[in-house]
């Protein structure tokens, strides 16, 4: 288990240094997207149209924050279950998405997809959303504001603590753990 500091998207070429089980402190620019936004992203991609956010080398945070208190940058924010986005992941990776940030088990095909597209799945801690709000330096809604908490937001994050589940070598922390146990 090693610790890494990543600046995004500048360090998008450095995913080869990450291994499942490593800790990452992520800074830079990432985008939120949940179920509804993914549906829209992928229908645009499949129609051959442009997306409101350039997905090349993007980091997508499966998250929908609580409303922002006056004087705050962001409300409580944290990961949602990533496996719900399963059917969208390959299209997003084809469009250039490199980092998925969420919570929970990976779906069965994910290790192979991460290997094929050189992408990684990292988890943020679930249920620590007030604390995680402190890592958000700026927040701006960049697409589909009518989706409310599910709109796409551009976040500037600072030292967001994450754990690598799927690295680009086809390893998966949770699958390895379950196998060790059996």
């Amino acid at each position: 288990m090693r610790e890494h500091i990543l600046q995004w998207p500048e360090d998008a070429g450095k995913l080869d240094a990450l291994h499942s089980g490593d800790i990452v402190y992520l800074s830079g620019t990432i985008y939120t997207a949940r179920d509804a936004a993914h549906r829209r992203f992928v229908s645009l991609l499949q129609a051959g149209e442009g997306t409101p956010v350039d997905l090349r080398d993007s980091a997508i945070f499966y998250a929908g924050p609580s409303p922002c208190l006056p004087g705050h940058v962001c409300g409580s924010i944290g990961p949602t279950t990533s496996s719900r986005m399963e059917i969208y992941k390959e299209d997003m990776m084809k469009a250039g998405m490199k980092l998925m940030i969420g919570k929970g088990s990976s779906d069965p095909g994910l290790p192979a997809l991460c290997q094929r597209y050189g992408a990684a799945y990292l988890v943020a801690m679930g249920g620590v959303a007030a604390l995680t709000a402190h890592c958000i330096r700026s927040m701006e809604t960049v697409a589909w504001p009518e989706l409310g908490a599910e709109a796409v937001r551009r976040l500037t994050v600072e030292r967001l603590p994450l754990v690598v589940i799927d690295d680009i070598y086809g390893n998966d922390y949770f699958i390895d753990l379950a196998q060790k146990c059996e």
Partner: protein
Amino acid sequence: MRAIHVDEIRAAVRKLCIDANLYLPSDVTAALENLSKKENSPLTEMCLTQFRANREVAAAEGLALCQDTGTAVVFIELGQEVQICGGLLTDAVQQGVADGYRDGYLRKSIVTALSRINTEDNTPAVIHLRLVAGEHLLIRVLPKGGGAENMSRMAMLKPSAGVEGVCDFVVDTVKLAGANPCPPVIVGVGIGGNFESAPILAKQALMREIGSRNPDPELDELEQKLLMRINQLNIGVQGFGGPDTALAVFLESMPCHFASLPVAVNLNCHVARHQQVIL
């Protein structure tokens, strides 16, 4: 007869929604703090430290403990000697939920089931109303996040499956859920009744105090056994491995048809929120 005005109910529900989302019940906090007293893996230690810091930030800044402030589940015990005046009880509860989610800056996560249109005020709450003896009105609010709720399961087992079958179903549910329900979880199990009763029993079970014993000796013994089996699954805090997959297993049971053995398992995450008030 005792009269309770709907305005009082509405205000109470508003406050319960906000408080439940900002402050963990003390038994849950104590159970999480207990985990820190042992030797833990570095990842588990990192989680537990963040859990503690999160509680402190939430309380100090008035932020929700989790961004998923859930479906508002409201359990009401209405004494038969109470007369509700000024309007409808359920309207007052729904208005109180809308007030609380608006004023507490809590996330509005409720959408229409098929067209997925947000209702904008986190209503409708799910209300369970029970008439009881007496002159009191008890209101319990349990904000229930989607992550743990989605991992819950229900089955109509064959009676031949017996106690063994029920236990296997419970353990399998936690195993299948893996890291998704934000472990350490609380496992609520409803056994018996009909198709609709078991899940309600399971949800009710989630509000029992951690550390309390089941008054039924058979269920009490099963709870201890199940907790041991679940904590051998090596899912651990946030799924990173280790012996702390569940904080507690709570069973509730009622008689059922002799052809049936309904069992429901409702999981709650480590942010196991609930607050109550008696009016």
